[in-house]
């Protein structure tokens, strides 16, 4: 039998929960875009990557705390999302999935290689952050940057949930997601809803990227990891809204932690993607789906 040190397991599980919260935040933008607009966005992870670089540039140029750059990067990304929507995404709305995938893979290649051209391949990290002091609870040590990332993610998820359920705009978004034509007949400006949704989905990646930069580094290949991961979470969450995304992210974070504890760090992606296979095979509508 494999013997596992219980305190190590507890430690990894706690890490898994905080990582999972962050993963939920990364996936939330994709879930919004896919759920509302039916757009298959393969470039989602690469927005996280671009956000990480933007955080790096802002933090090191103006010497500000990386997590605080989110106040600058989120509005920039909101506009960037709308521009990309107008230039590219609008043209492939309702197109075959294959065409949407082709176009967003093209976008992914542009973003990634732009990053590679400007910053070259070596990872870039911000050498300072206010989150340095770890929190020690008995045998468990929590990195304060991870804790902060988890809490901010949870708050952001809550805010988006409120936005979708308690505001007029949120009702318009959900109506559009349910039935585009009827929503249009009810006087909802669907084009505008789409543009703002894409902008919001993109802006959320900037927040996630700012949080990631407090404990990790930016490199051009970050996109593939976060892109696939987001899709795994969206697949699990189905179209169950923010709550589905939250729980799926947590599950993925915990599975990753268990994989690291039982087999080793080399196995973290292995368990996530195997889970993905089984979820798609046996619960194709997701664990929290409603359709």
């Amino acid at each position, binding site marked *: 039998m494999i013997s596992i040190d219980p305190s190590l397991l507890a430690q990894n599980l706690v890490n898994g929960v905080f990582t999972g919260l962050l993963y939920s935040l990364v996936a939330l933008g994709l879930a919004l875009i896919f759920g509302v607009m039916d757009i298959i966005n393969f470039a989602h992870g690469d927005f996280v990557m671009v956000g990480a670089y933007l955080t790096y540039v802002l933090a090191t140029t103006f010497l500000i705390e990386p997590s605080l750059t989110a106040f600058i990067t989120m509005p920039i990304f909101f506009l960037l999302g709308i521009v990309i929507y107008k230039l590219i995404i609008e043209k492939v709305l309702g197109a075959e999935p294959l*065409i949407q995938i082709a*176009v967003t893979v*093209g976008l992914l*290649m542009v*973003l990634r290689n732009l990053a590679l051209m400007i910053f070259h391949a070596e990872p870039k990290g911000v050498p300072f952050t206010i989150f340095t002091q770890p929190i020690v609870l008995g045998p468990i040590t929590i990195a304060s940057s991870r804790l902060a990332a988890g809490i901010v993610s949870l708050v952001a998820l809550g805010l988006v949930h409120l936005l979708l359920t308690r505001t007029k705009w949120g009702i318009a978004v959900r109506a559009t997601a349910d039935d585009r034509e009827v929503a249009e007949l009810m006087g909802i400006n669907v084009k505008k809803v789409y543009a703002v949704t894409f902008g919001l989905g993109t802006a959320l990646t900037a927040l996630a990227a700012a949080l990631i930069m407090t404990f990790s580094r930016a490199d051009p290949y970050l996109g593939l990891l976060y892109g696939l991961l987001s899709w795994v979470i969206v697949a699990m969450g189905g179209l169950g809204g923010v709550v589905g995304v939250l729980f799926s992210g947590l599950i993925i974070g915990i599975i990753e932690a268990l994989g690291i504890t039982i087999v080793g760090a080399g196995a973290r992606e292995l368990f996530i993607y195997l889970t993905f296979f089984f979820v798609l*095979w046996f619960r*194709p509508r997701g664990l929290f789906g409603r359709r």
Partner: protein
Amino acid sequence: MPGTLSKKLALTKERLYSLVGLAIVLALVPVFLGFNFYYVLLATNVMLAASLVAAWNIIGGYAGQLDLAASAYMALGAVITGHLLASFGLTPWIGMFIGAAVAVGVAVLVGYPTFRFGIKEVWYALLTSALVVIMMRIYYLIYGSFETYIPHMEPEWLYLTFRRYEVYYYMLATMLVIIIWVNLKIKDSKLGYYLAAIREDELAAEALGIDVRRYKLYALMIYAALAGLVGGIYITLTGILSFRLFDPWLGIVTAVMGIVGGLGSIGGAVLAAVILRSLEEYLRGAIGATYPGSHLLVYGLILILVGVLKPEGLASLLDYLKKKIIRR
């Protein structure tokens, strides 16, 4: 009905002539390149990409399944051929067929439940992309980050450890011609018509009594076998066994080339692979050193343009040219 029969024959003849023409052109390429080491290596890489895209065309173009795992099946063929050669001294001539068989086995293992549970479109694409990462991680858990080198063995023709690239070029060019031939054969067969029906409308195909799962699985198996064989040849060229062979990115790029070429058109797919791969190498040489990644950036822009402006891809251009020539 002799009329229709001769028509059918004529079509096959036309295709046969194009295939023979292609083979002659491919055979002459190294001569035109003056047997220059570097250029022949580039041509070999172009043949590799074209073969992989041609194999992908069966599952992606004909069956309409956006498979992103071409690199997984290729790498499986490669590592099995390579390890059999490096550890047991088994000739790649046999090894590559074992590798292809294993690739087919994995394809069935993954494809059967996937088609059984009706996974398609974006989920199929993501699943296959995840498959590449899963296999990479499994290889990594077994062999770690070590790279295994295949030593030079004599006789060269038996162990395929040639010192010049021309031999590999001709092997991959032959492979390409064979894969195109398989494509053409499938297109005109019962399987090809079934796959076309599945691609156009899966539900309608099923309603007509086509065993959708079975024929999708057949397409996947043929594709995996061909990709595995290509991998077997590829490993004798590079001689380095590493987990990096399982490259999710290569799987995506293969599908991208197939899409740019126009789905279901083998001519377009091969043309796209040849043009894009050559352009990539040219741009890498021209501007890649000063601006790393710029060649792939151009790639991405082309893809966006093709997707937004001309979803039929290069194949529509080919058709257009063909019509023009015939009209004259």
